[in-house]
């Protein structure tokens, strides 16, 4: 028997696999951002700093737009009422959404990273990639859990397309800052234990927001 949240996450992923509604748009957006960044900062010497900055800049834009979208479909198609009627705890709805969103954002981050590495010609060894993995993983999980909560809030407002990024920015800021600092260090060749502070901060952010968002989610989706 698969737990409810896993099946809810699979439902979201299957939907995205069939329509590719979100990923296609977000990929084009990040492609545009990274290309403009490459063209603007081409002659700079500190290519690792620019690359890390661009990676997180495109992540900030695409994730806040994508997270704002994650609940609009549920509202427009009336799926939310059905989901709320399911005989599962509200927490399962939350964790399902977080799991699916994290996976999609992680895929997006990986593609952005590959693109940036290619465009900027950064030597990305296996060790660097492995060191980057926990940073991206932790940041994405935190961004997804805070984002699912605030995405659900934003979806119920007027002008929700703008409201999503407006609500998300101040709340996502610590995760984004910690992520960009850790990425710069790692791309410059620092081993993983050098970014321990940032990793601890991201871990704390994840724990705090998984807990808080799980507790508040009920209030955010109530009709």
């Amino acid at each position, binding site marked *: 028997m698969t737990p409810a949240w896993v099946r809810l996450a699979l439902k979201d992923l299957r939907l995205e696999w069939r329509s590719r509604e979100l990923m296609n748009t977000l990929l084009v957006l990040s492609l545009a951002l990274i290309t403009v960044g490459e063209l603007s900062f081409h002659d700079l010497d500190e290519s690792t700093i620019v690359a890390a900055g661009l990676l997180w800049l495109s992540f900030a834009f695409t994730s806040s737009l994508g997270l704002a979208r994650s609940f609009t479909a549920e509202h427009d198609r009336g799926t939310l009422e059905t989901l709320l009627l399911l005989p599962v705890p509200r927490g399962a709805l939350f964790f399902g959404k977080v799991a699916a969103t994290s996976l999609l954002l992680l895929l997006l981050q990986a593609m952005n990273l590959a693109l940036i590495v290619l465009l900027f010609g950064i030597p990305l060894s296996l060790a660097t990639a492995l060191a980057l993995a926990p940073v991206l993983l932790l940041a994405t999980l935190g961004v997804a859990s805070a984002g699912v909560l605030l995405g659900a809030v934003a979806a119920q407002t007027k002008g929700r397309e703008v409201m999503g990024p407006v609500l998300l*920015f*101040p*709340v996502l800021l610590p995760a984004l800052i910690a992520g960009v*600092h850790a990425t710069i260090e790692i791309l410059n060749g620092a081993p993983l234990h050098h970014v321990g502070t940032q990793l601890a901060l991201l871990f704390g952010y994840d724990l705090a927001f998984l807990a*808080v968002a799980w507790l508040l989610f009920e209030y955010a989706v*109530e009709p």
Partner: protein
Amino acid sequence: MSRYRPLLLGATGLALFVLIYLSLAVAPEAAFFEAPLTQRIFYYHVPAATAAYVAFGITFLGSLYVLWNEDKQGVEPRLAEADRWAAAAAEVGTLFSVVALVTGLLWARVEFVFNYNAFQDPKVISLVALIVAYLGYFALRRGVSEPTKRRRLSAVFGIAAVIGVPLTYFTSRVSVHPEFLRDGQDVSGGMLGIMFYGMFAFALLTVTLVDLRRGQLALADRIDALEESS
């Protein structure tokens, strides 16, 4: 609280007047700074920053009260009151955040003579995050027209923002922000005392402003209710 309002207003006015006198005439020159005269802005800068966080705390407590008691019976007027406190404190908090940011940047410009990267300073970043969070809070309130829904959703955001903003403080690396208490600088001559007095005066001002604004919001709600019933 309206019975005490004249008293509160009078006390606040007096406290602020005394602060002006203390900060400009009584406080000694901070000789260890490049710009000792400009340093006097501290007696407004530090209290404004603490007042902003106090107001943020009121918003948080009001939001918590709303969500905690939402399902209970017969608490509707008290929920509306808590929501008004949260909204009023958010407005006052934005004002003081901007005051703290502007006074701080003004001082840094004179003291460091442009050699200052403000956005590497954790206090600047978290203050900016605080302002943006408050602006998001207002946008959210404007974006929901149904009162109970607005109350619930803005409470959710009020709590989420309180978790996010302080974390911003720990993400920044270098701080050039002066730390009076830590560096063991010469703060004799009652400088510290006047600063703490300033915090007290600004806390009083915060309570007064939040109370006035809360009263206005209560009147606005009454007008809305009357219009609906007529």
